[in-house]
């Protein structure tokens, strides 16, 4: 029986190539790979997978506990697994079980610290060889190797690593407890395999571990070390991965910074630099940037010259990047960033076939995607959904539900406003969403039930009233009628407890929108109706009291909330509710001590609703404006945002006009600056039109005289005196007076 240990660099294309060659030469009966044994049963799917993919091990009982072992096409472990699948040889993973790794509370426990020697043994080795960049050194020595006897290479690696470990020990390094257990587990795996009478065993592991696995001491010590480790229940599956995710550290230690380049090294065996530059040039041309073949030639020449200066036999990625920047990009960093994203890293997304075991939630997600013909993709994509169509409505529902589950596949770009059936989305799938799906599996077995459970849970936990109202809207958009009872109950509960009427009023618009437009999505809205009713009762009862003792800022917030609530009630309120609402407004209008801006607004809303006669309103206007300092705020509330309305609404116009012309000279002088300030909020054209209107004649469509303390009859005007007044008023309104 022979055991051959092949020490590799994880995700090293040269290692992968060497492993393949070595396995072909050895023709082993059994292949052992560094990795969690739980991955073993998953190996039967290897042929159907498209890398990059990752083995995901997660603890169903401990949500959020998960670990990944990613594989790219150029990973030596992947190539070993592929070789085994093609040659029909069994393959086994011999590292510590994921059940133990995930039970370890000191973190999911992946890579050791990168500055330690075991974390990056090659850095030490390359430093010993006089190179400052370990990646490049390894690339030169191993990854760029295209031929030679692979077994010799692995023997050399084993020798170097043995030396290195001895040197490291002399340097004061000791293996961590975890590392000792991992190596013990791997040795036990090898022992178990050799007991089975295999003739030729190949072991693929990180180069650093080779010395520890090369000889097998008595098993007792290892068995002792591994006894009594805490374990958790674990299930493992394949998940798709992306090239970008390969750059992160996870599973097999540190990530690779340039997966696209490694993939290139793996796929090309000759003219590596030339083919790379050709791909760069093609990419630049695709983006309408100049990239002539002549420039490509010069790029390769420069890369080779730089490599020569740096003492490398072949240009590597850094030489090629330098050359591409100097020649093809003409020193410009912007296209270089494009090349880095698309080629050096790449945007590949792995594929996992449907028959791979999944958690029910994930299965439901995939089934839903298939039914809706909606495919996750790593690239950004914009879609527009027409909510009148069943499929699109279901898609929108799916996206909204996923967002509730913390899977932000889609981002709403054009919000569904009142009266439109279109909804724009920006889609981008990230592989970690698969993980999120698996983690959320505890909430339910279908996307709908899980999302409803999430909403229910959040409604119970929400501290802020506004959070719950947001949940209501989210729940309706995601069409989760099951969650609505819990949310509305929470809403009702909170509304009873909250003393903040402004908050309650702010909650009205989303509820009203749900009621009014919910039917677009065919949502059952009775529950919302109930909540809205009960909230409105509270608002009406509390509004006057809540309007007392507000500073300027709070008054502004109250004003905004008041207007929002008013619009909401106008949208969905019954006549009875509207009456109650008006009564509350009248209460505020009558209340001494309420902020004048709110009062002015209330009077105006009441006037518009016909609950105050123009005379009453005018009286209030006069009274408010007599108070001096508060008058401006009152008038502002009264006239707010209604410049055009003032021009068109003759009763309102006349009301102001009558009040103004009824002022005594002294009172008029006092009111003039306030008026000017209030009118200054209207736009220039509006003010000009007002001036024109004043000049064109006083009473517009007036049925009878309403002057108080005026001169009397309509037909009893002294034209010249009126003209003088009008001129002043025109100036006050910001218009100009033409001499006639």
């Amino acid at each position, binding site marked *: 029986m022979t055991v051959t240990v092949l020490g590799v660099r994880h995700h090293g294309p040269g290692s992968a190539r060497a492993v393949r060659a070595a396995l072909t030469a050895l023709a082993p009966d059994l292949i052992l790979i560094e990795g969690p044994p739980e991955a073993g049963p998953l190996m039967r799917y290897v042929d159907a997978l498209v890398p990059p993919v990752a083995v995901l091990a997660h603890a169903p009982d401990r949500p959020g506990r998960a670990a990944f072992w990613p594989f790219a096409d150029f990973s030596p472990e992947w190539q070993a697994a592929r070789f085994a699948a093609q040659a029909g040889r069994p393959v086994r993973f011999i590292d510590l079980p994921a059940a133990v790794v995930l039970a370890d509370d000191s973190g999911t426990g992946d890579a050791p610290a990168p500055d330690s020697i075991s974390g990056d043994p090659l850095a030490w080795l390359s430093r010993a060889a006089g190179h400052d960049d370990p990646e490049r050194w390894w690339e030169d020595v191993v990854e760029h190797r295209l031929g030679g006897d692979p077994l010799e290479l692995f023997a050399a690696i084993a020798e170097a690593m043995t030396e290195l470990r001895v040197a490291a020990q002399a340097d004061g390094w000791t293996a961590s407890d975890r590392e000792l257990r991992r190596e013990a587990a791997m040795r036990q795996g090898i022992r178990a395999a050799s007991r089975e009478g295999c003739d030729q065993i190949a072991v693929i592991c990180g180069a650093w571990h080779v010395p520890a696995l090369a000889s097998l001491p008595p098993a007792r010590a290892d068995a002792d070390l591994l006894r009594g480790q805490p374990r958790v229940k674990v299930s493992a599956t394949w998940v798709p991965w992306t090239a970008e995710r390969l750059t992160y550290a996870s599973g097999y230690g540190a990530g690779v910074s340039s997966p696209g380049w490694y993939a290139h090294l793996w796929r090309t065996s000759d003219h590596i630099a030339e083919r790379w530059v050709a791909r760069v040039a093609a990419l630049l041309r695709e983006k309408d940037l100049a990239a002539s073949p002549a420039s490509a030639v010069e790029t390769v*020449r*420069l890369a080779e010259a*730089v490599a020569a*200066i740096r003492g490398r036999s072949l240009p590597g990625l850094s030489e090629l990047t330098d*050359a591409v920047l*100097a020649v093809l990009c*003409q*020193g410009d960093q912007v296209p270089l960033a494009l090349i880095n994203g698309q080629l050096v890293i790449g945007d590949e997304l792995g594929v996992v076939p449907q028959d791979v075991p999944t958690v029910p939630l994930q299965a439901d997600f995939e089934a839903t995607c298939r039914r809706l013909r909606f495919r996750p993709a790593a690239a950004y994509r914009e879609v527009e959904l027409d909510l009148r169509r069943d499929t699109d409505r279901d898609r929108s529902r799916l996206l909204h539900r996923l967002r509730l589950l913390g899977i932000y596949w889609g981002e709403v770009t054009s919000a569904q406003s009142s009266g439109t059936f279109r909804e724009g989305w920006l889609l981008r799938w990230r592989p970690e969403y698969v993980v999120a799906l698996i983690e959320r599996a505890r909430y339910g077995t279908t996307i709908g039930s899980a999302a409803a459970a999430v909403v229910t849970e959040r409604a119970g936990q929400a501290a802020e009233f506004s959070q719950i109202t947001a949940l209501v809207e989210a729940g309706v958009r995601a069409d989760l009628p099951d969650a609505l009872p819990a949310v509305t109950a929470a809403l009702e509960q909170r509304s009873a407890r909250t003393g903040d009427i402004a908050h309650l009023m702010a909650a009205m618009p989303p509820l009203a929108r749900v009621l009014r437009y919910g039917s677009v999505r065919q949502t059952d809205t009775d529950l919302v109706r109930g909540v809205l009713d009960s909230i409105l009762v509270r608002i009406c009862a509390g509004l006057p009291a809540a309007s007392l003792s507000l500073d300027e800022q709070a008054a502004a917030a109250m004003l905004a909330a008041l207007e929002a609530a008013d619009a909401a009630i106008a949208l969905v309120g019954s006549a009875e509710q509207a009456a109650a609402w008006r009564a509350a407004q009248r209460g505020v209008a009558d209340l001494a001590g309420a902020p004048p801006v709110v009062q002015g607004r209330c009077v105006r809303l009441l006037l518009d609703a016909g609950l105050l006669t123009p005379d009453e309103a005018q009286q209030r206007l006069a009274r408010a404006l007599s108070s001096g300092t508060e008058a401006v705020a009152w008038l502002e509330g009264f006239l707010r945002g209604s410049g055009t309305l003032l021009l068109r609404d003759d009763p309102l116009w006349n009301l102001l006009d009558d009040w103004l012309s009824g002022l005594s000279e002294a009172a008029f002088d006092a009111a003039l600056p306030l008026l000017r300030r209030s009118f200054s909020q209207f736009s220039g054209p509006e003010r000009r039109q007002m001036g024109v209107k004043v000049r064109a004649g006083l009473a517009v469509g007036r049925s009878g005289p309403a002057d108080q303390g005026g001169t009397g009859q309509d037909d009893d005007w002294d034209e010249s005196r009126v003209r003088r007044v009008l001129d002043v008023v025109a100036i006050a309104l910001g218009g100009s007076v033409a001499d006639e």
Partner: protein
Amino acid sequence: MTTAPPANVLRPHAEQEYAAELAALAASDDRPRPPAWKLSPWAVVSYVLGGTLTDGTVIAPKYVGVRRLVEVAVATLATDRALLLLGAPGTAKTWLSEHLAAAISGDSTLLVQGTAGTSEEAVRYGWNYARLIAEGPTPGALVPSPVMTAMRDGKVVRAEELTRMPAEVQDALITVLSEKTLPVPELGIEVQAVPGFTLVATANDRDRGVNEMSSALKRRFNTVVLPLPATEDAEVEIVTRRVAELGRALQLPAEPPALAEIRRVVQVFRELRSGVTQDGRTTLKTPTGTLSTAGAISVLTNGMTLAAHFGDGQVNAADVAAGLVGAVVRNPTQDGVAWNEYLEAVVRERSEWRDLYRACRDLDVTIE
């Protein structure tokens, strides 16, 4: 031809000043040299970036910056492509090109200075009109340009401030760079470049009054963008080294300024350049000038001159203040505001900078 010792010149050429280093490098350099190169590319990189040779000779760093940029520049020249050094003013473009020419050809004097008035004769060839009239068009009447000389002798020619030349003059280089030949139709001959010929151009992309290069010409260059110093420490190192060297060359009796003074000037430059104070707390107006490292160097050498001739020989705040104000305030109205804001909001607040604040304020009578 240019190896004569610098006898009382204001500024010796690089190949004269560093003749000893070049000789030591050539002696120890056993790597292959491209045709007509005095040194191997590897030795050229060492000459530029500095280091210690096996025989103990210390090579002073000429360019302080990223190694890969220099490697790419040298590799470009080794592949007989033309090199374009691009960057903001004061990023040592000319400095680097001079040293590259000195190290590769042992001659940094073949130079075409780009100005708005540079004519095609400066790039191609001119005529000695007296002889032209007397003899007619003969080789003897031809006045070769530095480019033509470099082509004939296989040397590096430098084109400084390429983008300041009129565009049509720039384009005269296209044939030279692509065909490596310069025809002289009047004589019915052509000058073909021999190995070793190449061109280093410098250009800046920031200044006003530049003539964009045509893309046909730009394609014939490999471009290396020289950045401003990335960190304060790197910039302080550059300034310290150059100030000491310049002080020596100018035979100033003043001591080189203390590191603290250098650091302070560099900090002022960096803060105003980036528009934010070092602690990231205060946003500043950025003056219109470029505030290059070279500018900081000249502020300090200027301060040394002042200290030597009018002060106590020690560079202090008063000595650098005048140069500092002059370097920052290029445009009195806009930059004046920026500078005053900086003085009041930043310099004044730093207790250990009080001397600088007072010195700057003393200069500025209009504000008091």
